[in-house]
């Protein structure tokens, strides 16, 4: 029995309902995505959640690095591959819409 059993995801693996997110769910998603969460990862996740509560969407990488002490290089080490997408996923947010 996993905490993810009752959580609904879209086709790309993002939570359908960001409001249903908990810290336990974040840990479980991170495990599924093969990402190890550290205190520094939580700086990013907490900020992403705060931005979501205020603006209704996931912050861009530029926004994260501007408003936290995590720089782009560290973001890539915390969330390898695509930090924007991966951080949004772990934070229970929808896929970032930034790229048009």
């Amino acid at each position, binding site marked *: 029995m996993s905490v993810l059993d009752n959580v609904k995801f879209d086709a790309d693996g993002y939570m359908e309902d960001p409001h249903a997110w908990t810290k336990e769910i974040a840990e479980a998603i991170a495990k599924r995505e093969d990402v190890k969460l550290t205190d520094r990862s939580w700086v990013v996740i907490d900020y992403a959640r705060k931005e979501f509560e205020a603006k209704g969407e996931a912050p861009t990488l*530029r*926004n994260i690095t*501007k408003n936290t002490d995590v720089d782009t290089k560290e*973001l890539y080490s915390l969330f390898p591959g*695509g930090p924007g997408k991966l951080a949004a996923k772990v934070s229970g947010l929808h896929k970032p*819409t*930034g*790229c*048009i």
Partner: protein
Amino acid sequence: MKTFLILGAGTGGTMMANKLSKRLDPQEWKIVLVDRDETHYYQPGFLFIPFGYYQPEDIYQPKRKFVPSGVEFVFSDIELIEPEANKVTLTKDKRVIHYDQLLIATGTNIHPEEIEGMQEGGWRKNIFDYYTFEGAMALKGFLQNFNGGRVVLNIAEMPIKCPVAPLEFMYLADYYFTKRGIRNKVDLVFSTPLSGAFTKPISSKLLGDVMERKGIHTEADFAISEVDSGKNKIKSYDGREIDYDLLVTIPTNMGSEVIARSGMGDDLNFVPTNKRTLRSDKYQNVWVVGDATNIPASKAGSVVHYSAETLIENIMCAVKGKELEAEFDGHSTCHIVSGYQKSLLIDFSYDTEPLSGLYPFPVVGPFPLLKESYFNYVGKLAFKWIYWNIMLKGIPFPLPPEYSIAGKRQVA
């Protein structure tokens, strides 16, 4: 007398000045248009300059020529916008303009200084942009003397003006080097922070296939961290490196500095704008058009053209004290020149991906969508004339502004 102030006389500002001067009552409204530059560049032409397919004089004209009589045209930088006080201060003579309605059309510019090392040693020696007239001209000079090596194009980060232009650059480079008989001595590499060739999945696959067919290597998910111009390498945050002999960069695109100074922008100085009404999210008498907005549509002339139809109707509602009626659907049409006198056409909106079929009319078209054709290429070249003679002057032409699914098919 009331004042309608327009900041920026590029594609959006000029087009709207023409539309507003026809619709606003001249007894009641004075229109003021401000821009710092006297020259209007036909920006889609920048792409053709490096390859010598357009000459410099093909792509610029004086801005004044497109400004209707009755509009006061002021050449000046803008020092500050104070939307709470409904006023704008210009740099020239510190002139203060009090407005009743404001339209922001200050566009976007490239910022090579955002990428570490970009402007060191190699800048404009073997590193060039082509999103400025100067950059495109400098690159032309370099290409004429280039006889082989590795050409790398890099998109620094999204969003960028005209997201298909980098693909067109690669397709045209393939054509150009082939015509010069040195294609076998040139490696072409396309590096992008996106996961594929374009932003929308179906067209990304199709445009990526065209890349492959032309022998152009795509380096996807490449987020540039720095340029090492001593060693001619670009590096990504995840540790990849790409060597280059010629680096063509699409640097970070940002809105105007005055937007930042005035505290009106997002992290990239784009103005938060309602994507349906095109009014500022924050101020009832502030409107935004074109590249200056943060709406999730392409930063492109076609989007300006389609959205101007919505904007003029909503502005007219607002000045008459009525509810806003028109809604923009994110409609965008892009011509993608693929070389060999052919081009592809894609047509999409906020909610709909590019589909195949015929544009703009079902069955008769005449332009096929998502397919390379000579007819599309002729359409792209004809567009320069349409731009100067019809579009900038705000004259309606028979293309429906709303995105329509008629005549289109989903790609299997």
